[in-house]
């Protein structure tokens, strides 16, 4: 009881509380390796039934955070709880509450699909009597019935991920951790994977997924950005896109590549990205710049063909947060 009370006080200080329905709570969670700060003071709450997308570049701290939540890494500061239990000190107990799909394919290649699922069922203490029914259901869910007796090593990349998902679900956890589950998959299998995640979410499972695909971030109900071990923002994709304070200017210029290089060097322009042949500009005060350009186009060797205002997408949000274009964001820190 005493432990639970301290939980509340700590989370109250961090501005989050289990009463809000947070199934995963991170309270200034930190991990450092000597001088290197892999994760710094990460605080966030993930509610029941959310599909939480954890975005960040490679090395931003996504996997480190996920491993801490799985009780595989000891936090060096702060703490995290899953359904009220500390993920490190009570990791043995917490582990029955989640399934984990690792970034690398990490099932037994020499065991068949069925043997893999059965093994993880036994390892997760699924009663022997319940295994056959679970096996049938999971094979149907992941569409692996035909591959039941095939060695896991012989499966294609997409099927391997589906099998990994089946193994993670065998003990029917209320929570699912997926570390870049679709990296390296073809679009068809990515779609299949996401449809599965929607079904699971609909069935009441909370999903925590890391990715660096921006289109996948759009599919999440909540998105968190992590950069250099710090949480830059956490909100729904819609809210994140709304956090752009400035409109986004897109221009058509010819020739486009020299234009990209020249515009990037302009001190008024924070950044430039090429989208379908047009240049998207991140500018603090785009109207002012546009007005100036209408008066006098400063690049005689470049031809301005047209311009328009566009809605920011997740990639723009990610670029702005990860590159630190604070001037285009309404509130630079969440």
């Amino acid at each position, binding site marked *: 009881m005493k432990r639970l009370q301290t939980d509340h006080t700590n989370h109250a200080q961090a501005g989050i509380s289990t009463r809000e329905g947070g199934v995963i709570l991170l309270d200034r969670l930190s991990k450092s390796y000597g001088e290197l700060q892999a994760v710094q003071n990460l605080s966030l709450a993930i509610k029941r039934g959310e599909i939480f997308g954890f975005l960040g570049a490679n090395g931003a701290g996504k996997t480190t955070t996920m491993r801490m939540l799985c009780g595989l890494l000891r936090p060096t500061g702060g703490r995290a709880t899953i359904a009220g239990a500390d993920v490190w000190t009570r990791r043995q107990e917490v582990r029955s509450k989640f399934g984990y799909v690792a970034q690398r394919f990490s099932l037994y290649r*020499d065991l068949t699909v069925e043997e893999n699922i059965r093994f993880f*069922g036994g390892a997760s203490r699924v009663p022997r009597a319940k295994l056959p029914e679970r096996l049938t259901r999971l094979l149907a869910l992941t569409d692996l019935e035909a591959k039941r007796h095939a060695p896991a090593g012989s499966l294609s990349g997409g099927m391997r991920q589906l099998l990994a998902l089946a193994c993670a679900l065998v003990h029917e956890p209320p929570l699912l951790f997926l570390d870049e589950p679709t990296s390296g998959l073809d679009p068809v299998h990515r779609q299949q994977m996401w449809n599965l995640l929607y079904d699971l979410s609909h069935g009441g499972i909370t999903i925590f997924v890391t990715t660096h695909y921006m289109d996948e971030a759009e599919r999440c109900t909540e998105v968190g950005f992590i950069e250099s071990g710090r949480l830059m923002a956490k909100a729904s994709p819609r809210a994140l896109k709304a956090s752009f304070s400035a409109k986004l200017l897109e221009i058509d210029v010819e020739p486009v590549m020299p234009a990209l290089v020249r515009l990037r060097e302009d001190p008024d322009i924070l950044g430039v990205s090429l989208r379908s042949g047009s240049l998207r500009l991140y500018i603090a005060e785009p109207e002012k710049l546009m007005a100036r350009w209408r008066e006098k186009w400063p690049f005689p060797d470049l031809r301005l063909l047209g311009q328009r205002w566009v809605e920011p997408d997740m990639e723009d949000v990610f670029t702005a947060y990860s590159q630190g274009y604070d001037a285009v964001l309404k509130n630079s820190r969440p």
Partner: protein
Amino acid sequence: MNWPSISAIASVAYKEFLHIYRDRRVLLLLLILPPVFTLIFGHAFESGERTDVPALLINQDPTPRTQRFVDLALANKTFKWREQPSTGKSETDLLGQGVRASLVIGPGWSKSLRSKDPLPLRLNLDGSDTSTAEQLQGSLQKTLGDFQMKEQQYMIDELPEEVFEFAKKLPVEVRDQFVSAMTPWSIDHKVLYNPQERFIDYVLPGVIGIILQLITVTLMACTIARERESGTLYQLMVTSLQRGEIVIGKILPYLAISVFLILVVLLLASWHFRVKFYQPPALALTCFLFLLCSLGLGLLISAISRTQTQAIQFSVFFLLPVFILSGAFAPLEQLPKAIQYISELFPLTHFCRAFRLVSLYRAPLPYLALDLLALLFGALITFLGAAFLLRRIEQ
């Protein structure tokens, strides 16, 4: 901490068994190598005595008496003589002659035996390996002793009649003393514990121990390292499995296979080499503790190494000194005292000693208690060490 669950351990054990079963090549090796090794090693060390060592005999003294000695020498099974009448420079060129020894009977040797200054025989020996020379010399010395006894009889027969007349006048004690002086004194010896002095009976525990140690340590060392390498270890750690369950589950299939292999090797030894075994319970206990200790050791190596390659390297580095210093093939007492202390650290040393105490000495349990305790202690230490090191994965 909950109690380890039997069904969780069974899951791990079954999975581990599938790994072994699926890897057909290793499985085949596992089942064929131990009996084959036992046969080869068993025959290799069958007789400790050397026979038919090529040697050169240069006789420069062609007399009947010398011929009597040569006949005795030719009957000596240790040597395979090649006779050569005269000498050259070849006498010391053992390598060129393709022999390990050369014996030169100098001119006038038989005559000198009757003088007060008998000439020595000249023997050249190959001392490159340190044991052969001594053995050959000893064997020849024995032949020479036999020859001397026979010649004494001839000499006595040829003595003039006066000597015997004179001898009859001597007191009985003096005569007896003389007879005793002319008789070689003997030892009435009785060989205990290995009365037939069969080397196979002595070396069998060494053979069994080395084969099993090799298999258990290297295979076991690879198990955790393989999971670490393929990333499955993390997957294993995030299940509800406890470390103890993983360790026990991993050990069980290898333990079962090793027990089976021991039975095969023992049966082979008793059927093919006619080795007799006594006190099966004590022997079984010795083997079981040794297996536990070896598996624990493999597990420890496994927990230390990052990759399978490292695991194999660690195993080889560990096993090499064990093979040489554990007293598997030669008595430990030959080693310097300081090295003997190191030997006591190896499970194989205790296994060989305990096994011999049971099978050769038929010693009751108290005699092997110390070695069995050492094995048990080793098993405990390695298992706890491995379980502790597995902790480091979660950091």
